[in-house]
């Protein structure tokens, strides 16, 4: 049961979750900062759109992703036509699905952390001549780093466990798009219980280890 399928699936899961988390880090931090700092029209609407995947069933998210990014999709058609990129039935589809469902966790957690930074410190940085962006990188982000880290941990955990939206958009192709959760489903559906067992144990151990690391390094400063 520790065969090539198993290692491929584990490697694929980690690869998808890492790339998705990287994207979530950049986009999520940017959006959270935008929401926390800059007043603009349509903020509430954008916030709603970003947060929606948190409450929608993953299959519904997957459906929307097909509509947008599928070969005939609004964006997917042009991606395919101009750049020759297609996310359907490709591991990048799994990344996209994980990204969309993990993003709101990062944005919500990080926004709260950024808003908790003493506004006088930000005002002080402004009066000392620093732009909003410089202030973000030198004052706000360093002071909110624990919240940002917590957001990343949640996003990574969500990404590695992504199932529904991935299945819809990327499919369940062994060695290509079948991440651990999908492989568990396949193994259980075909009655290979010892195989299912191995997958579950490894995924649980991996998640527990990750959570322990998060607790170790993401703790608030007063409890050290």
């Amino acid at each position, binding site marked *: 049961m520790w065969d090539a399928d198993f290692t491929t699936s584990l490697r694929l899961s980690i690869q998808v979750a890492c790339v998705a988390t990287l994207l979530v880090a950049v986009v999520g931090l940017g959006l959270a900062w935008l929401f926390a700092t800059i007043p603009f029209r349509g903020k509430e609407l954008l916030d709603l759109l970003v947060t929606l995947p948190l409450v929608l069933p993953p299959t519904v998210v997957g459906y929307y992703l097909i509509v947008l990014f599928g070969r005939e999709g609004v964006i997917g058609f042009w991606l395919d036509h101009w750049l020759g990129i297609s996310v359907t039935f490709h591991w990048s589809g799994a990344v996209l699905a994980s990204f969309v469902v993990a993003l709101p966790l990062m944005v919500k957690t990080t926004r709260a952390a950024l808003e908790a930074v*003493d506004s006088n410190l930000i005002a002080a940085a402004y009066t000392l001549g620093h732009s909003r962006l410089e202030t973000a990188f030198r004052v706000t982000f360093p002071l909110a780093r624990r919240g940002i880290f917590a957001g990343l941990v949640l996003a990574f955990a969500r990404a590695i466990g992504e199932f529904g939206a991935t299945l819809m958009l990327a499919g369940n192709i062994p060695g290509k798009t079948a991440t651990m959760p999908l492989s568990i489903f396949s193994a259980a559906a075909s009655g290979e219980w010892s195989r299912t067992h191995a997958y579950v144990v490894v995924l649980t151990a991996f998640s527990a280890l990750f959570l322990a690391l998060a607790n170790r390094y993401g703790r608030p400063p007063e409890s050290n």
Partner: protein
Amino acid sequence: MIALEMRKELVAADGPMWLDLAIELKEGSLIGITGPSGAGKTTILRALSGLLTPESGRIRVGDELWYSSDLGVNLRPQQREVGLLFQDYALFPHMTVRQNLEFATRDRRHVDELLALVELEALADRFPETLSNGQKQRVALARAVVRRPKLLLLDEPLSGLDPQMRRRLQDELLRLHRRFELTTILVSHDLAEVFRLCERVVRLERGMIVADGDPWQLVDEHETSHKFSFIGEVVDIRPADVVFLAVVAVGQQLIELVLTADDRLRIDVGQQVLIGSKAFNPVVKPVGEPL
């Protein structure tokens, strides 16, 4: 000349009120703004530094226009060259003392010079949370002046410090003010402090200027015939027969005074009081000679 005119609606405890005032300052002067809390003192400093925008008005500093509601000019805080000293110090907790100052300027020599001036060289590599309040305040003060601002704004700079430290920092403040010829606005509800430091005092109540002038004029309006007067803080009051004995701290000294029962009704421990005397025949001698 620095000219400020502003109108801004404030929400006070008992409903909305208007902060509505016009002040002109001489360059290089040190002016105090005093008044009860909620009078709008801090709002003035935040408007001058560009952290909030008034409903209408005009701010002119020398030949620069910082804000004008008529002309649609409103410089961002980054463009205004102000040094703002926050009531809670607002030191960056993740930076050392030196880094806090270097955050404001690239000029390392000037940072060294300032650290020496406020006697903080020994603490340069410490983080703010390891400093006493007095030390934090000196760092904040040094950081506020490091860019040689056109306007230094101090928001209750010395509240929360013990009297000795307060006295020391007042001297420091005067030293920096003179050294860099900084036009300074000091917001404080501590009368003694305002008297010691400021050439001119503006008193603000419910968003309006109710008095403006020489510090002595302000308190002494009805009592100008006094030969001697001091401002002090009541430290202790105890009854003695039909009167009360009050101990008042004036500068470094404690003075014992008699209060009548009527006085006692108006005066309490912790209060700032004006002590005046008409019949006074002072002896003046060089320090060291016996009186």
